[in-house]
């Protein structure tokens, strides 16, 4: 049998990748909105071994995904570029990435989007429950 040239990998350990950090940091929105809004990270190759992580606020009931931010990095995890609108902000390590994420999540524009989304979800739930109750009555 041919000798296996690959090293042993620690398959149990989840590597602390930028993607993992984004997923974990964003997951808190679920708790803050009673599960109605979720945070999704959609990753794709950027070229040169790098990755682009598009981060969305998602209302599963509406089939709605609001693009909140994008994180990009090369083959090395850092630096990460965080893009919210046009201009990017660099994070050189996990600590500065967390600081940047806190800034995005707590920004007034993000709060406005979340509140608007909750309002639409609430409207949608009300109208669907009223239509279902009227249909059950006929």
């Amino acid at each position, binding site marked *: 049998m041919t000798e296996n040239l690959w090293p042993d990998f620690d398959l149990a350990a989840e590597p602390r990748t930028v993607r993992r950090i984004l997923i974990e940091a964003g997951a808190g929105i679920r708790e803050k909105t009673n599960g109605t809004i979720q945070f999704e990270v959609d990753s794709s190759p950027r070229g040169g071994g790098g990755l682009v992580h598009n981060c969305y606020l998602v209302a599963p009931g*509406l089939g709605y995904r609001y693009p*909140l931010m994008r994180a990009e990095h090369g083959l090395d995890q850092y630096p990460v570029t965080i893009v*919210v609108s046009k201009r990017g902000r660099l994070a050189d390590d996990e600590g500065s990435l967390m600081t940047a994420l806190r800034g995005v999540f707590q920004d007034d524009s993000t709060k406005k989007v979340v509140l608007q*989304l909750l309002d*639409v979800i609430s409207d949608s739930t009300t109208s669907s429950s009223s239509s279902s109750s009227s249909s059950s009555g006929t």
Partner: protein
Amino acid sequence: MNFLFWNVHQKPLDGLVVRMVEEHNVDLLVLIEHAEPRHNLSGLLGAVGDFVQISSHERFAVYGRFGPECMRRIEPPVPDNRMDFWRFKRNGHAEINVAVVHGLDIHNHPDRNDRLAFFSRVSDNILWVESRAGHKRTIVLGDLNANPFDPEITAATGLHAIRMRDVAGREARKVRGQSYEFFYNPMWRCFGGPPESPPGSYYLYRYRHNELFWHMIDQVVVRPDLLPMFPEEQLRILNSAGPVMLTTHGGRPDRRGASDHLPVFFRLNLES
């Protein structure tokens, strides 16, 4: 007044739409092949401004940041669910006619005669709308499913949209005794636009000896009377929605994450 139109390929892309409306301060939004259900989009646009949905054919979804009375739908004598017409009239703004068109695609309508006949009808209906309005301040926008150089767009019996702003100062030309009015087609400039701008609105890779790859099938064309109000340099094919790219790393439309078409933004200075 800012315009944005996009063929969303029946995909649930409302989040990207809202983000672009916000970013480009859009006043009139036209979506072609919008996915159902669409009733939530008005509410979601509420995060950006007071939008109302404008009455339209089902294949279009039209939203305006103004009262619904400002955009009155006009039914032409020979209606067609791939074209829609409105008169936009708002205090302090020049009145215009707006036509939205979804042209016949080459795949399902391979006979060019069908596609030419379609644009002949578009032209006839526009002339009818203009005669009712008493002016020729008209724009046509949409997924025309033809390139700016195709006969459907350039022929006198088609849309008659040409690449020159001015043909010896004329607004029409005669062919065999019949007069045909021009549109100006500004999309030609987008073929060789700025380096960061996509060179088309639609990309197709086919195994043919002659292949263009990039196509400019999403277009806006304007009558000469509207040219003074049309800042051409603001016309853009967009490749991002806020932080999210609508194109892949290779620069082509991201069919997976967005649409196979790219959106088009332009402005008309209608404010008097």
